[in-house]
């Protein structure tokens, strides 16, 4: 029989407990959503709810707050941000990576320097701009500030730079335009990086809380995280109901992550190899 090393056992033990710690809050949240008000405060706690068919908490959540609207808003904001930001990121990264224009490096350095400014500091200027454009409390207010990203541009430019110049020359000699080269060669080649960028962006947008809280007031344009917050303060702090609302908020992202897991791991691994 193959001998199992003690260190391997130890490693798996550590990983197991690590995973447990990561998973437990989710487990607690999801099971909590099915428990009644008395069950959730019961001592000792139950590991499984008495019945998985108890949907009262979800009903309550959906009745007191328009979670469906929030959900649609969130999805809209996420898709708009991911698509718009994806397009601007691709175009900007291509310009900085392949096109020759005066001041290219200087401009890129300035952009990188901007990355040092934390988002929280830009909130005030962004807010004033949005108010100035009369977009306060509209969906555009949620989307516009996130249609570009220096960080993602920087990442993608790094990948574009690693594509050999000779591919570009080969395409040029065949009469390929920059535009066609970008979409037919560079973008498909950077698919893993692009998917990673878009997923990170999707998660960040889905979870964004501070900006939606500042930029929106009315229920019609609220997104899920802010909606959840409002639900807690408006609907009173009932643990089991909060769990149900939180489950609704988190579940879509978990599904997205599971579906796209392959790409995320791929993208990270590739980046590592190139490193």
């Amino acid at each position: 029989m193959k001998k199992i090393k003690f260190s391997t056992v130890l490693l798996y033990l550590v990983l197991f407990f690590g995973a447990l710690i990561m998973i437990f809050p989710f487990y607690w949240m999801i099971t909590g959503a099915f428990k009644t008000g008395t069950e959730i405060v019961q001592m000792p706690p139950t590991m499984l709810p008495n019945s998985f068919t108890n949907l009262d908490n979800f009903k309550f959540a959906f009745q007191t707050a328009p979670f469906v609207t929030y959900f649609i808003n969130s999805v809209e904001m996420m898709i708009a941000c991911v698509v718009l930001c994806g397009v601007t990121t691709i175009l900007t990264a291509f310009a900085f990576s392949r096109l020759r224009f005066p001041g290219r490096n200087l401009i890129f350095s300035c952009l990188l320097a901007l990355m040092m400014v934390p988002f929280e500091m830009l909130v005030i200027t962004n807010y004033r701009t949005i108010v100035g454009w009369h977009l306060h409390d509209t969906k555009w207010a949620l989307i516009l500030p996130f249609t570009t990203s220096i960080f993602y541009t920087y990442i993608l430019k790094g990948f574009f730079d690693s594509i050999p110049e000779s591919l570009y020359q080969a395409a040029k000699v065949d009469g390929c335009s920059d535009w066609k080269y970008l979409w037919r060669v560079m973008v498909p080649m950077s698919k893993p990086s692009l998917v990673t960028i878009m997923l990170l962006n999707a998660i960040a947008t889905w979870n964004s809380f501070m900006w939606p809280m500042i930029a929106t007031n009315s229920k019609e344009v609220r997104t899920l995280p802010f909606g959840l917050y409002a639900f807690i303060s408006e609907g009173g702090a009932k643990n089991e109901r909060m769990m149900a609302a939180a489950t609704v908020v988190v579940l879509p992202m978990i599904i997205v992550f599971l579906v796209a897991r392959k790409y995320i791991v791929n993208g990270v691994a590739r980046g590592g190899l190139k490193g």
Partner: protein
Amino acid sequence: MRVRLENITKQFNKDTKAVNNFSAVIESGELVTLLGPSGCGKSTMLNMLSGILIPTEGKIYFDDDDVTEMPSDQRGIGLVFQNYALYPHMTVLENICFPLEIKKVPKAERIARATEMAKLVHVDMLLDRKPGQLSGGQQQRVAIARALVKQPRLLLLDEPLSNLDARLRIEMREEIRRIQQETKVTAIFVTHDQEEAMSISDHIILMKDGFLQQFDEPQVLYDSPANCFTADFLGNPPINKMEGVVRNGEVYVTDANLPSGVKIDLPEGKEVYLSFRAESAEYNPEASLKGTVIMTSVMGKEKITSIKLGNMEVRAYMDAKLTLKSGQEIGIGFKDTGVFVFDRETGERYL
């Protein structure tokens, strides 16, 4: 198509002239090699032909068209790169189709022409693979097919074989020759490997430091080098080069302090190089030039012999039947061909 280069100069910055006053005519349907040591301006020359670079001075003509400043895509050229430059996300077929796709050739015709080209370069059974699933030689074949599919007037290859291992290099260079002759495309092939150049070219252009050294058929380059550099660059084993001075119309080998027996009509005391190919020396007990055998190794009917001449060592082929022991003194005579005398300063050839 005939390519005419007139006084081409390419200056990158104040002190680097990568190509210098370069003129040559490449005849239609020929395979011409640009040969020279690393950094001599071969790639620069090729990039000017492809339109990636624009010459500082001079003119390039394709047949009678002045293409000096014409954009690359209008020149009708095919390019093959050292690193193949295949699109990794496309299959072999898509790669070969790509130039036609850009030209908006209808899909059916595109596929037909690409498949035919794939047959020519023997990759027709690999059409559905991605470049990452091919060997280096196969990738290079695909790259050649992609360069040829739009029927270019001129095929340019920049060191296409240097990423391959030795055996594949020999196989692929014969393949390139075959494909070139079947398609009759004018081709310019860049390499720094003299053996590669000798074996496939109709003509060789030898370059050094941006200057054209000699432009001739391979055999002429070998038999009758224009200068000392050409003689040194071509041939394996490398030519033997000895310092000498002229005394009484004969070259004296300075290192051995002996007359060589090579007669030449030059002023007394002129400093020269006496160079001879390994196959141009012969065993001759009467010869005035004598050396000591260091070692021999038999290669078929000849043996290559290392001989000590004063402070230096020369190599010569000797008849395998001769018994030569290390330490033995032998006389070195010369045959009529493959013996040259060059000016020690300018490299100019006298004999």
